[in-house]
């Protein structure tokens, strides 16, 4: 620290010669002039002192009959004096300091910590919607408001701490790890309805929870037939209907039906033979401008190309609109070939299996299929029927019936 202060003020290394050097040193001490690194060398004394003290030495030298010779000059005053013509350097330095100070008043990194259930990108996107983004001024931020908004927006976050450290916004959150409960949606009051068949088929199974079933297991039905009715007749002691109660019919109705399957593809296909030569072309993207080392579109021979693309990040989460990467290009030659009969059969079976797997994902039970594969000279055809069991019901509003006049709507009270 002392060294730094001396450098800032400037100091000189002097050589002392003359009649009474010791007297000179004592006069310096008596006049509160500080010396350091004083040594006796080659019959003379060398020492260092500050510039301000050096200016006071003339009367002391005269008194002691000594001569001083400047050996070295160090410090900022000498630096500024030697570079007084280099104004651009100092202007640039001042501009740099000003720019650094200006940049330090903005937020350049947003760090999210403690999040497990909510991803960092989700929280950053939310903050962006609330006007908190990379490059925002520190004075425009309110840490308390950010904490409140994050707590309100994410129900499983129990604690939020937001603070600014340097040019970084630190958001620390604690989530509820004991069990995240979904908000229970209130069930709307269901309107009365009937259930009708959504397709033709045979009723395999029917489980009714609400309403009156109109079909039984084994009965055939067509599309639009009534399966379960939501109209419940209320009868009196004589067995006559006095009124109707309407409910929301709820039932699981399983129908056996058939899907018609047809798939066709050509035996002729174009095969690609890839070459061993792989070409790589680096590229740079700045915003909407892309700089390629080669124009791939002008290449004539057919090829497959893919690119590895990376984005530049200034800080942890601050992405710049700058991308760089490499485009890899591999040429190939085309040749026309024909699938063999065995390959055709295998492909057709694979396609059928994919179709059946998709049906299973939809909850359809496959009972069997009679799909046949026909292979001609030019095409391969797979067609047939797939027997399935599936839920095929549709809700339709009940027709509210009016009670005929003369009928008592209430039950007899006994």
């Amino acid at each position, binding site marked *: 620290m002392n060294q730094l202060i001396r450098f800032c003020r400037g100091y000189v290394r002097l050589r002392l010669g003359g009649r009474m050097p*010791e007297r000179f040193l004592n006069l310096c*001490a*008596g006049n509160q002039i500080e010396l350091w690194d*004083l040594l*006796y*060398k080659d019959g003379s*004394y060398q*020492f260092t002192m500050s510039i301000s003290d050096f200016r006071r030495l003339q009367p002391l030298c005269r008194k002691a009959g000594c001569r001083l010779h400047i050996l070295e000059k160090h410090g900022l005053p000498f630096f500024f004096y030697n570079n007084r013509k280099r104004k651009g350097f100092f202007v640039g330095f001042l501009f740099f300091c000003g720019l650094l100070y200006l940049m330090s008043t903005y937020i350049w990194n947003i760090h999210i910590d403690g999040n497990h259930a909510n991803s960092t990108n989700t929280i950053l996107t939310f903050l962006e919607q609330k006007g908190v983004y990379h490059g925002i001024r520190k004075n425009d931020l309110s840490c308390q408001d950010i904490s409140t908004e994050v707590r309100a927006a994410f129900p499983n976050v129990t604690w939020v701490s937001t603070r600014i450290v340097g040019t970084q916004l630190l958001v620390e959150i604690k989530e509820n790890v004991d069990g995240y409960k979904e908000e229970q949606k209130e069930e709307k009051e269901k309107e009365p309805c009937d259930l009708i068949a959504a397709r033709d088929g045979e009723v395999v199974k029917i489980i009714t929870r609400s309403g009156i079933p109109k079909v039984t297991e084994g009965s055939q039905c067509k599309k639009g037939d009534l399966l379960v009715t939501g109209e419940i007749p209320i009868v009196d002691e004589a067995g006559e209907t006095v009124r109707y109660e309407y409910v929301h019919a709820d039932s699981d109705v399983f129908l056996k039906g058939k899907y018609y399957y047809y798939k066709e593809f050509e035996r002729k296909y174009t095969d690609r033979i890839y070459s061993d030569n792989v070409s790589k072309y680096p590229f740079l993207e700045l915003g909407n401008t892309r700089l390629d080392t080669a124009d791939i579109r002008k290449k004539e021979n057919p090829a497959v190309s893919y690119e590895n693309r990376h984005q530049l990040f200034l800080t942890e989460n601050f992405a710049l609109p700058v991308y760089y990467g490499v485009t890899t290009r591999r040429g190939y030659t085309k040749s026309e070939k024909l699938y063999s009969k065995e390959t055709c059969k295998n492909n057709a079976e694979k396609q059928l299996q994919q179709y059946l797997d998709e049906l299973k994902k939809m909850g359809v039970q496959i009972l069997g299929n009679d799909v046949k594969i026909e292979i001609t000279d030019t095409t391969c055809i797979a067609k047939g029927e797939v027997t399935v069991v599936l839920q095929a019901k549709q809700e339709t509003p009940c027709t509210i019936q009016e009670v005929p006049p003369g009928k008592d709507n209430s039950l007899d009270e006994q």
Partner: protein
Amino acid sequence: MMKKMNNIGSSWLNRMQVPPDLAYQESVITFWGKREVCIENYRHILEYRCGRIVLLLKNGKLCINGTNLIITRYSQEEMKISGQIHEITFET
């Protein structure tokens, strides 16, 4: 008589808890091994050579003999000497 006066004076200073270097105008010499010595409360330099430094104290002289003696810091209050110190003697 003078001796009695001196004794009265020293006992009075002890009771007042006045530091002895301030009370008796004594020099304070601090050693760091044999390579550095710091001297406070001296009057001025009498002689300074590469292997010998002679200082005038309030009560006598101090001679420092050694090799490569450099006065690292020199001011009116204190002086720091570094080098290879062989001998320090007090002379009246």
